[in-house]
């Protein structure tokens, strides 16, 4: 059995189900991706806040949290540490918040490519790449200078 524990995909969706970010670390056909996004949205959008932040999804599980109108969802192995991924989501949100100065959904829409770039400094190959918010923000500024 594959003991490899990694993130399989990351989704940012709003309440209407519009995808604001979709990063896949496993290969999926476009149609499969759409199905996944639809299913995950359905799973998380109706969950009462008194329920846990973990839902079983096919043979894996999705860790999610809602921030304002956006759902941040991570799909991980069923045996992996849910609480750790909640922290992971929170750190990502903090980074975005810092980068965009009080981030709102519109920032993420008009600067979607930047969101991907930030994500790529935070997570790579489905694993954590950096745990310091400061380091990531600094790196982004260095890279911006090259543009």
């Amino acid at each position, binding site marked *: 059995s594959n003991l490899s524990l990694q993130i399989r995909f990351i989704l940012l969706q709003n309440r209407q189900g519009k995808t604001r970010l979709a990063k*896949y670390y496993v*290969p999926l056909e*476009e149609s499969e991706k759409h199905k996944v996004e639809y299913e995950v949205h359905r799973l998380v959008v109706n969950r009462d806040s*008194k329920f846990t932040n973990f839902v079983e999804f096919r043979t894996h599980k999705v860790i999610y949290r809602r921030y304002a109108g956006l759902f941040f969802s991570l799909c991980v192995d069923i045996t992996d540490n849910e609480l750790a991924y909640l922290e992971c989501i929170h750190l990502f949100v903090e980074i975005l918040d810092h980068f965009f100065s009080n981030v709102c959904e519109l920032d993420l829409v008009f600067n979607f490519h930047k969101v*991907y770039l930030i994500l790529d400094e935070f997570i790579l190959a489905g694993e954590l790449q950096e745990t310091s918010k400061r380091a990531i923000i600094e790196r982004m500024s260095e890279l911006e200078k090259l543009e």
Partner: protein
Amino acid sequence: MNSIFSGTRLRDMIRSIRACKTAAEERGVVRKECADIRASINENDPHDRHRNLAKLMFIHMLGYPTHFGQMECLKLIASPGFPEKRIGYLGLMLLLDERQEVLMLVTNSLKQDLNHTNQYVVGLALCALGNICSAEMARDLAPEVERLIQFRDPNIRKKAALCSTRIVRKVPDLAENFINAASSLLKEKHHGVLITGVQLCYELCTINDEALEYFRKKCTEGLIKTLRDITNSAYQPEYDVAGITDPFLHIRLLKLLRVLGHGDADASDLMTDILAQVATKTESNKNAGNAVLYECVETIMAIEDTSSLRVLAINILGRFLSNRDNNIRYVALNMLMKAIAFDDQAVQRHRVTILECVKDPDASIRKRALELVSLLVNENNVKQLTKELIDYLEISDEDFKEDLSAKICSIVEKFSPEKIWYIDQMLKVLSEAGKLVKDDVWHALIVVISNASELHGYTVRALYKAVLTYSEQETLVRVAIWCIGEYGDLLVNNVGMLGIEDPITVTESDAVDVVEDAITRHNSDMTTKAMALVALLKLSSRFPSISERIKDIIVKQKGSLLLEMQQRAIEFNSIVDRHKNIRSSLVERMPVLDEATFNVRRAGSLPASVSTMAKPSVSIPNGVAAAPLVDLLDLGSDDIMAAPSSSGADFLQDLLGVDLGSSSAQSGASPGPKAGADLLMDILSIGTPSPAQNNTSSVDLLSTAGINNNPSNALDTLSSPAPPHIATSASAGGMFDLLDGLSPSPSKEATNGPAYPPIVAYESSTLKIEFTFSKPSGNPQETNVQATFINLSPDTFTDFIFQAAVPKFLQLHLDPASSNTLPASGNITQNLRVTNSQHGKKSLVMRMRIGYKLNGKDVLEEGQINNFPRGL
């Protein structure tokens, strides 16, 4: 064309898309943009590539196809400038994945960029490679990446480490190459490099035993030290989360230690101190701390036993159970289920808290808690636990009641210390949730009741009282009716009073009231009503003084709209009226139902796999089990009460024994047509000359009376009007020849009665079948059919076999065919004898299946013959 018409800016495009009010409008805008982009792509102008790709990525995120942009990614990646490469790689990762061949074209660019002098470019390449490389690319570029693990810049080292993680996932063979580089990363101080190094080592350990050995021997102590340093470290604002320095690194280190300690006592030994430290010192008031604790508990559970650590771990989980955060409670319950395997005692200590979680507002927590509780039940605590669960049953949500009642029943059955307690608990459950209780549960209850002769009086009295209050609980009513029918005399005479009971006054009329009520209540289902009639029959013997009243009730049901009830009413009335002499022996007290046999049947599989010691808690009831309990006195009843079993052996046995009644009593779900067809295929399968009756796989289940009333839902799905009675002929002879010894000599003319015209029963491009009919003397129900099979093809048929199935009201006998070889344009004949029990009311109908070999290939033809002449 130049770039005057370079199209909209990215922002403007996004704005105009957002301004669309309908999906159609959006499609229109997107279509136009795509057209512009395509045109721009065709011009091959490098200026707009960057913006075009950015737009395409946005359009892609909306869900539109963007394949035409893939090559643009490649061109951008091949460009010299950083911004172009950056967006090119980003587009690559978004629009392509490892399965696409286009990706291979990037390999060369990647190789160059991995060797680029600009480290930011190197970073881009590592990122893309790490996120989407295929196995081939991984293999090609592994040496580059390995080298970069030791690059001077920590950002590159991090990326190289994670990129390597992907490489070894894709190509496990390459794992060895990375061992040394990975272990050097473990000495790093930079958190980012360290955590990626730890992850790489973890990956290597899980896919390569040599790596595991290496890291275990060489790096365990170092890792422990690293974890200790970080646990003890002073406040580091950059990495602090809720008072913990870099909880992510904590967690990754714990994970790696887990893999190193698992299965190795020495390594485990080295870790115990640090694990104890983390377990006791970590603050658990915030999620970050709890995440670390959780990982720590996982590691403690996985490494080699140190029982004091385990107790520590379980206590942490116990504390988690009382945490207000339901996420924490949830993970604790999950872990405790695993922990039970190691240390049941330690988990038992938290039983009370776990029980509280059964009442949690969150459904998934309730479910898990219930699972956990049922694993904790033993002889010592069963009474207390059951009481708590039943108390909760009364107030729980409807949607949880089913799971809860099922669990309580299974706990009670497994651990009941004495029969009277079992009966009491079951009565409570049935009173609360009878509607939701499955058939096998109340069947089991009846078996137990029947075996507890000293409790018959007590039980029937308790049931009587219960059913007065909870008459809407169907299952309770059924059990009560059965008991009143059986033990009514004990009920009205206060026979077998136990010390704990008070006498109750129940007249014979009161008892009959209850039974009558079950029949007349509008929401009683068929099973209940039918059982009530049987009970009345018994009572008519046991209560002679009100036999008239009982008779009246039965007679009234003769006019019931339910066929089953009509039939029973008529038959029972006949017994009551005209067969009083045998009535009392008919309805004598039921013989004790053998618990061991019941358990065997209930498990539903071949006896070898069933233990008859403890009652197995089985999820799917075997249709067989229903039969002996309810239908022993069913005179010709075809009531089908149990849910169908799903094993193939049961289907066969169903077919063999079945005498199906009206379909009104069908319960449970039918399997889809596929199952039914397959089953029929099995029975009609070519090359198995012996008919289905000879199948011995379900021999044990065929014993005794149990078979007769099983549903065979598989048959419902066949298109013939009623389930077929299967007959096949063995052209090699077999059973029928031995028994019949008939030689096929059909008479072509009718000897008695009218002649019937021959028919073409079937015709395809290769085969034609004709039937001619004659009636043997004396019996209008019998028809002789001579079947002629004609080979219409230019080649010879060999191994020809004809099989047929008919509905239940027909009986079919096939004589062997004249031959099983048909030369081209030749024919063979075969005699069939059909007996129509519904002669005059229903016509003959038949499904047939023909198999033969033509030019070495197996051919199968099937069809239904509907054109039999009427009156046969």
